């Protein structure tokens, strides 16, 4: 992963002499757009919906903006991420010498991200959606001089397009069947649509939006594109863009169609659970910091999809109040994920900028050279583990609560689905802890494993400010999720099946409606502080009889001084786990033994390499690709270049016409 300075310099600076103020302008505009998105979005959430219609934009259709609380909430969330990323990007772009093109595309990308949730019509939505795909693709390709980036870009482009096709077919069928191109109109007419259409739309949206959210099976672009994009872009993609996949599912399946039969929710839960477990498993064995974060995105989106699925399933089973808990869980976790994933990717970007590395096996010891970044990444990682005092805790807690509160004795489907979901959720949180401990512990603690890590530079002030903003978000979600309460209630009120006053109360203590169950992150945090001070007190025991504290070299087991090479690496850290999940992960291991020249019995070095292929890719994508390629080869064989054959084609056409046409 070491960057070749020459190649990077030539390609990034090619042809453009960027003024030194340009990063500030680009980042500033991005942040300002983000802030505007927050303001407008929040206004829409709290009762100032925005309507605008521009008929002359986009031929034959026109654009239409309809910002309701649901859209507003997503817009505000996107804006918040963008604001932090924008500030960060000022320093990052300067340090990485961005060319003019990405500087221009960054705010444009944010603009498209803001347009999507504000779209009031199918046309506007798809327009924004594809524009978002295009701008993000362009940004992913910023460092296109690297082979991995191009490969990632191709994956991204193709899978996004497949997803887009699914969405397009779903939305266009929906709008033509309901006779309206506006979401409002679709919503009004949704009740009269036939079940076949509704089911088709649901499946297509799960595939299409799921691909954007990184859900199985169209997830493969995510762990490629997110790591290879420049880090501010990774942050925007992983913390804001994927959310819009969830938004699509909520907007269409939950809001417009008002939910469906039970198998809808079940399907979504299965997809979500599979994504969550698969994602976290991959994350926990991944040795690339950004790839790990990207797989963690698949994991968290899977959890959110599970929550939405649960909400749909429960809503369809007539359990509105529990459904509301599940939905709140989804929304809250969405916010939490946005906060900690943005922070995570920004911090990873700082590491990349400071060391030129993202390979955990070569990092380490950053805590001393990059203390602020380390602390900030620690906050993000804590959030991602789902442990208390972290940002991810409350969302996962709510999800678990919704599952616990599902009465199920008399319903076989629920009795099957709910326990299995709990199992998946449980496995996910367990593995999530491993992944994050690895990322933080191996990457930032211990001693540097390479020269790059040894010479790490702390992030620049604007980068730190950007990260601090995201960290603030993490802390708020972790300690005071109550702050989000009013907004979430407003959003939930726009959704049928969970509407009304049934949602969980997000006060200082989170309480569930009509059920026993509560938790209070704020009080827990306070109590934890008290507990820690108590421990500080305990630690004073015997302090008078104690010799003065000293600093000593590490205990090397009696051997000579430890070298950084002797440390555990990310790969070795994950090795036991990889062994456990050998059958699922199917790693590709390769041991190469080099003997010394003189004797076969003496070994000079042993190289152990293990590569982790994506099982879904292996068993789903490539067969399809091979099949298409085989058909294509067949078609190609039919085009031999022989003019006689070509004329024969025409003749056959002529004969067919003669036979059919008469």
């Amino acid at each position, binding site marked *: 992963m070491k960057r070749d300075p020459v190649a990077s310099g030539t390609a990034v600076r090619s042809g453009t002499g960027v003024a030194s103020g340009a990063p500030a302008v680009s980042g500033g505009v991005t942040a300002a757009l983000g802030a505007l998105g927050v303001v407008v979005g929040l206004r829409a959430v709290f009762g100032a919906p925005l309507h605008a219609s521009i008929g002359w934009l986009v031929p034959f259709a026109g654009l239409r903006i309809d910002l309701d609380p649901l859209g507003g909430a997503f817009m505000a969330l996107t804006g918040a991420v963008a604001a932090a990323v924008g500030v960060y990007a000022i320093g990052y772009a300067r340090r990485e010498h961005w060319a003019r093109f990405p500087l221009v595309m960054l705010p444009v990308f944010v603009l498209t991200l803001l347009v999507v949730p504000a779209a009031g019509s199918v046309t506007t939505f798809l327009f924004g959606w594809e524009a978002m795909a295009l701008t993000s693709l362009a940004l992913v390709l910023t460092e296109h001089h690297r082979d991995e980036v191009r490969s990632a870009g191709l994956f991204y482009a193709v899978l996004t397009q497949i997803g887009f096709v699914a969405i397009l077919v779903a939305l266009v069928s929906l709008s033509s069947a309901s006779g309206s191109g506006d979401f409002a109109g679709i919503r009004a007419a949704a009740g009269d649509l036939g079940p076949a259409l509704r089911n088709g739309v649901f499946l297509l949206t799960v595939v299409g939006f799921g691909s954007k959210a990184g859900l199985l099976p169209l997830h493969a672009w995510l762990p490629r594109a997110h790591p290879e994009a420049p880090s501010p872009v990774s942050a925007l993609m992983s913390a804001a863009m994927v959310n819009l996949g969830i938004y699509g599912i909520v907007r269409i399946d939950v809001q417009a169609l008002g939910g469906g039969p039970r198998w809808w929710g079940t399907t979504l839960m299965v997809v979500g659970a599979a994504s969550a477990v698969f994602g976290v498993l991959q994350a926990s064995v991944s040795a690339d910091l950004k790839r790990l974060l990207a797989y963690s995105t698949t994991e968290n989106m899977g959890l959110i999809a599970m929550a939405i699925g649960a909400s749909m399933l429960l809503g369809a089973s007539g359990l509105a109040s529990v459904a509301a808990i599940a939905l709140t869980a989804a929304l809250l976790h969405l916010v939490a994920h946005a906060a900690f994933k943005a922070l995570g990717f920004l911090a990873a970007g700082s590491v990349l900028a400071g060391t030129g590395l993202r390979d955990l096996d070569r990092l380490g010891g950053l805590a001393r050279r990059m203390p602020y970044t380390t602390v900030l990444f620690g906050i993000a990682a804590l959030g991602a583990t789902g442990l208390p005092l972290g940002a991810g805790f409350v969302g996962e807690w709510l999800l678990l609560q919704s599952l616990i509160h599902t009465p199920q004795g008399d319903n076989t489907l629920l009795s099957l689905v709910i326990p299995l979901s709990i199992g998946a959720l449980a496995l996910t949180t367990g593995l999530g802890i491993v992944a994050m401990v690895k990322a933080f512990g191996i990457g930032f603690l211990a001693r540097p494993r390479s020269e790059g890590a040894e010479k790490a530079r702390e992030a620049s002030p604007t980068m730190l400010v950007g990260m601090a903003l995201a960290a603030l978000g993490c802390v708020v979600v972790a300690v005071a999720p109550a702050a989000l309460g009013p907004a979430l209630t407003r959003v939930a009120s726009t959704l049928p099946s969970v509407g009304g006053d049934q949602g969980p109360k997000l006060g200082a203590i989170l309480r569930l409606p009509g059920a026993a169950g509560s938790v209070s992150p704020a009080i827990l945090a306070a109590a934890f502080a008290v507990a820690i001070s108590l421990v500080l007190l305990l630690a004073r025991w015997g302090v008078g*009889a104690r*010799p003065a504290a000293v600093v*000593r*070299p590490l*205990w*090397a087991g*009696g*051997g*000579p001084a430890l070298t950084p090479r002797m440390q555990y690496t990310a790969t070795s850290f994950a090795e036991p786990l990889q062994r456990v999940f050998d059958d699922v992960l199917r790693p590709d291991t390769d041991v190469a033994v080099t003997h010394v020249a003189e004797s076969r019995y003496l070994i000079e070095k042993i190289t152990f390499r293990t590569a982790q292929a994506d099982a879904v890719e292996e068993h789903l994508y490539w067969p399809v690709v091979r099949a298409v390629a085989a058909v294509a080869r067949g078609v190609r064989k039919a085009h031999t270049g022989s003019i006689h054959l070509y004329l024969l084609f025409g003749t056959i056409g002529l004969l067919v016409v003669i036979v059919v046409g008469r």
Partner: protein
Amino acid sequence: MSWATRILKVGRIVQASPAAPARTVPSPTGTRASLQIRHVDAGSCNGCELELSGAFSSVYDAEQFGARLVASPRHADALVVTGVVTHNMRGPLIDTLAATPEPKLVIAMGDCACDGGMFRNGYGVAGAVGDFVPVDVELRGCPPTPDQIVETLRKVTGR
């Protein structure tokens, strides 16, 4: 379940311990009956090791007097050093002592450790333990019996 019945049948294996010897060595921390020991083999013939493990076995049960073998010098109050100090083990021995937190003491166990014993003039031998680290307790014997070991430890733990 045959194990259970056997345990019941055999009952206590540990031999009766004599009264606590006088506490000749000040306990490192002033705490009675708590001594964590890190064992360092500085170049032993393994005779002492055999006896040492005997001292912690069911028959002698040094643990009943508060002594326990630990894995890291950081955890230890005392180093039990066995054998002569070979050239290769001189550095590690010094390092190990340095890694041990204060207050600490060094118990040289066996004749070799105390003065080099029968290996004194070996080509690989650097010297006795006392030549490199300050020895607080000497335990003579080649090898010392478990009884002797336990007794010495009891002098330290004071139990």
